[in-house]
């Protein structure tokens, strides 16, 4: 059973090297972005401010909000990258983070090597990746290009490979920053099916997006973030 518990979480980004005096004097609030505040005498951007929620099996969350409202930061807190300065985060279940699907891949390495590089960054062991290789190669339609260095690929081919590896296993908790779409018309249809399949198998989905129709199609709850605060949680269709 997957479970996410977020209690009163705040995240501050210290801004070093931006300590101009005018910044220091003003407590600044802009239409977009988090709150810029002072903490002792460094400037911090408060990206998340006292956020609390609980997610259980079956929850499909659409995260919405302005640019800089804290969506990506919240995803990174859930993925474990940022440990909050205040509050607690408790995540039970295997997480797959689709925040950057080509992270770990290297242009100079061959497509084949990159399957393993990406797999390792995703938290798999080489022997767990081994049995999936054939399927990944087939899905990405790269053929013999898989033995060529990735720098010889077109950007579309590289994306297809990254997508194929990143979606090769389903996880209990899926974190996404915007929906993934790759390739030409024909491939993108195939990719959509595969992504829907991965999303369907995930017990919890957290999808940050500006596209409300996309969120309505895939999610059952909307969480609105504004200036790093969770302003509302609505159940879709009620």
């Amino acid at each position, binding site marked *: 059973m997957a479970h996410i518990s977020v209690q009163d979480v705040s995240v501050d980004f210290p801004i070093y090297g931006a300590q101009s005096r005018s910044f220091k004097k003003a407590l600044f609030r802009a239409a977009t972005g988090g709150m810029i505040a002072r903490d002792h005498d460094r400037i911090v951007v408060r990206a998340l401010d006292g956020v609390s929620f609980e997610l259980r099996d079956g929850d499909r969350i659409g995260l919405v909000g302005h640019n800089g409202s804290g969506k990506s930061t919240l995803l990174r807190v859930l993925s474990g*990258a940022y440990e909050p300065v205040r509050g607690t985060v408790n995540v039970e279940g295997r997480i797959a983070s689709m925040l*950057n699907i080509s992270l770990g891949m290297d242009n100079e*390495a061959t497509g084949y090597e990159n399957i393993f*590089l990406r797999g390792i960054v995703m938290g798999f062991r080489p022997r767990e990746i081994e049995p999936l290789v054939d399927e990944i190669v087939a899905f990405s339609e790269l053929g013999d290009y898989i033995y060529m260095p990735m720098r010889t690929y077109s950007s579309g081919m590289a994306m297809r490979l990254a997508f194929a590896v990143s979606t090769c296993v389903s996880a209990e908790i899926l974190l996404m920053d915007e929906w993934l779409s790759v390739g030409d018309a024909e491939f993108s249809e195939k990719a959509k099916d595969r992504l829907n399949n991965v999303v369907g198998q995930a017990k919890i989905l957290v999808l940050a997006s500006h596209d409300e129709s996309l969120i309505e199609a895939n999610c059952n709850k909307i969480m609105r973030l504004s200036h790093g605060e969770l302003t509302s949680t609505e159940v879709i269709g009620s």
Partner: protein
Amino acid sequence: MLAKAMRDLRVGILSVHVWPTLAWQEIRQRYRRSVLGPFWLTISIGVLIAGMGPLYSRLFGQDTSSYFPHLAVSFIVWMLLASLITEGCTSFMVAEGLIKEGRMPLTVHVLRVIWKNLIIFAHHALILVILFIFYPPPLSWALLLVPLAILAIAVNALWVGLFLGMLCARFRDIPLIIQSIVQVMFFLTPVLWTPGALGRHAWAAQWNPLNHLLEIVRGPLLDGRVAATSWAAVIGMALVGFAFVLPVFARFRARVAYWV
């Protein structure tokens, strides 16, 4: 917090499918499409040692047959120590993408740096193999300590790398300062000259931690010595180092993602 830091260390060290791969990847990335790869560096170091050996042995008025092996062993181990220190500074900075994605223990990034430099060191060791054909090392049981000495260097590199990695991620001037210090230390440490040449000022080498790290490799290879004092110093350094770094790592580990 200490528990999380220990977990980071334990999981990181046990991730033996991760850091060696990342280290090899970094070497391949740098030398891809080059025929000799890291051996280019080996060749240039080999030429340097071959040129400096006879010259400096005359300058210092020392017997070539004892000075040459001293210079070669010291220089190659020095290259390892110097790059472990300077690259330890950037271990977290260069892994920004991976750190901000989460999940991977920070220890992995330091181990990647250590493993990468051990691989490069293994390339340079070829010079020693050639050297020992001409100047065979004294055969003794002490030679068995050489692999252990390399391991001791790696263990010390781990705490140094964790500490400098955090410090440099936060204060971006530190890597530049460290680089200058390492350069100066090259001349202040018995690499080009032998510790014996200090005479009654031998304390200058005895209080130099880098000298002890060199000595535990050099002792067995050059004179079949165990270098017990240096071993004590190196083991002491590791103990004091970890005792100091663990609380610091526990306190600031979670901040690194915000700093890089």
